[in-house]
């Protein structure tokens, strides 16, 4: 559905994009991750047709965005980092304008606007002037603008930035709902959010794609898949004595005390083996109460840091 081939972009002497290639099939929700200045916004701008690439091309359903701008732009709804709002208009006036701008047939505009208002929960503010709306509402007006023409593809640049936790949850639920029958690309620097919404992440650093993984793939990659963190209600000495008697543990690391009267340990297994059953047996046989046990799979943060650090070193 979206195919990006060897995208490069230079601003004056500075290289913003080195070489970006990926493809996204229909119905995927893909997360764009990367440090500031990595090229996320530039890539999104090029896909949406706002700016042009120095090299490479973007195909939407097989059509080049530069050669067929009208056809491809009809298929894309874009919410830039700063929502493109006319502050002097009311929400209704603004969305009526966007519906016309997106070349919706005159008979469908009113209905499309009402649906977008409904979807973005904006019905109660529709008569208000955009300038007077709160940041959360403004963001939702921006989202309504991207949705109004019912595009197959939604590109959302940091859709939850600056929102409070409740609003973030609302937007996230909305994105999940929309993702059922649409292709969505969203960028974010809030990693847990990406892991909750997206099934696949593209990590960009230094103008290149440094990782293209599914979320399941991320959970199992790199070292540490056999690591476990335990919390024991006992002192450090007794616990480490007990732990050293458990077979199959490669390394025991004391992490500290995060709860009164307890201590946390990280245990790495030989060859990524699952230690949980052995640990249960060992603690059951002892008198030390085991009050927490979780696998220490690397989080998206870990993967992200590792990959971007690697890029920085190279």
């Amino acid at each position, binding site marked *: 559905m979206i195919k990006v081939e060897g995208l490069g972009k230079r601003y004056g002497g500075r290289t913003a994009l080195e070489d970006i290639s990926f493809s996204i099939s229909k119905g995927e929700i893909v997360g764009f991750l990367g440090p500031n200045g990595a090229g996320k916004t530039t890539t999104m701008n090029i896909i949406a047709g706002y700016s042009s690439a120095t090299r490479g091309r973007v195909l939407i359903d097989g059509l080049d965005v530069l050669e067929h701008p009208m056809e491809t732009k009809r298929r894309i709804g874009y919410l830039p980092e700063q929502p*493109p709002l006319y502050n002097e*208009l009311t929400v209704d006036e603004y969305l009526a*304008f*966007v519906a016309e701008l997106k*070349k919706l047939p005159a008979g469908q505009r009113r209905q499309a606007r009402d649906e977008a208002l409904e979807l973005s929960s904006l019905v109660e503010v529709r008569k208000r002037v955009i300038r007077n709306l709160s940041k959360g509402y403004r963001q939702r007006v921006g989202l309504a*603008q991207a949705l109004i023409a019912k595009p197959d593809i939604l590109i959302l640049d940091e859709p939850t930035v600056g929102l409070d936790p409740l609003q973030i949850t609302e937007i996230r639920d909305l994105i999940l709902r929309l993702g059922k029958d649409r292709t969505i690309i969203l960028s974010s620097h809030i990693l847990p959010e990406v892991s909750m919404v997206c099934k696949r992440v593209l990590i960009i650093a230094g103008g290149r794609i440094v990782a293209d993984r599914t979320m399941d793939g991320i959970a199992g990659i790199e070292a540490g898949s056999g690591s476990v963190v335990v919390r024991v209600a006992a002192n450090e000495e007794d616990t480490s004595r007990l732990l050293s008697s458990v077979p199959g543990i490669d390394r025991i690391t004391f992490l500290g005390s995060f709860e009164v009267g307890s201590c946390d340990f990280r245990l790495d297994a030989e060859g990524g083996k699952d230690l949980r059953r052995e640990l249960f047996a060992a603690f059951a046989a002892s008198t030390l109460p085991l009050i927490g046990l979780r696998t220490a799979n690397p989080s998206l943060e870990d993967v992200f840091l590792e990959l971007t650090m690697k890029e920085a070193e190279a």
Partner: protein
Amino acid sequence: MAAIFRREILSYFVTPSGYVFLGLFLLLSGILFSFGTILSGNSSFSGFLESIQFIFLFSTPVLTMRLMSEETRQKTDQLLFTSPIGFYELVLGKYFAALALFCLAFLAILSYSVVVLLYGDFRILETLSAALGFLLLGASFIAIGTFISSTTENQATSAVATFVVLLLFWIMEPLKSGLPQDVNAGIVFSASLALLLCYALFAATRSRIVTLLAVAVFAAAIALPAVLWPRIFSGLVASAFDWISLLKRQESFSGGLIRLDNIVYYLSFIFAFLFLSVRFVEKRRWS
């Protein structure tokens, strides 16, 4: 285009700019009509129209300063350029919106003619000719303003630059009399003009060969007559200024003479500036 036009008109009336423009225009023209026509008993409506042309200097920047600048500053251009509309639709929609507001002000001013019709000697054909000239001049100035607005994202810069450029067109007439009129000045003037054209050609094509070829053609076209018939360069500067001057061409309109070449001139002037605006808007995407 209709969407852009409608939004632009709406914005004129939900922000102060539309009211400031209409207020300025009607206040100044009202004062001039009271003093110049009613109180002094002058029944020439075309003369009145000519006398209020200077209002364009102040009112055009108010009308055009935010057209493109505001889109860039508020980043609403991201919405426009990712929507299925062409760059020309965008520029034309905005231009026609500004023009519509100007026509509204003009209609209000035309209503003053009732006073002349009732109490004076109203020359209908002369007034129609003057009105056409007035509209064409206003439309040309708005095209300049539209273009300048598309080059900057700062409204104040846009307004000031528009004012300065319009002022330059205004003082072209008095400026002309101070310019040298001899043969050498004419040759230097033609050569500078030719160089400017060659530079524009180079900027557009980036081809050294084409540019050098053009330089050669221009050099021959200037050198040959300069040697054979130097007299044609005498007074060239003044006639060039006369030709460019937007105001000089108003004289025939207010005198009741509608000349096709003048109409064509204004229309091509408008077209040229709108074309440049489209190119500028388009080019920003590539930078």
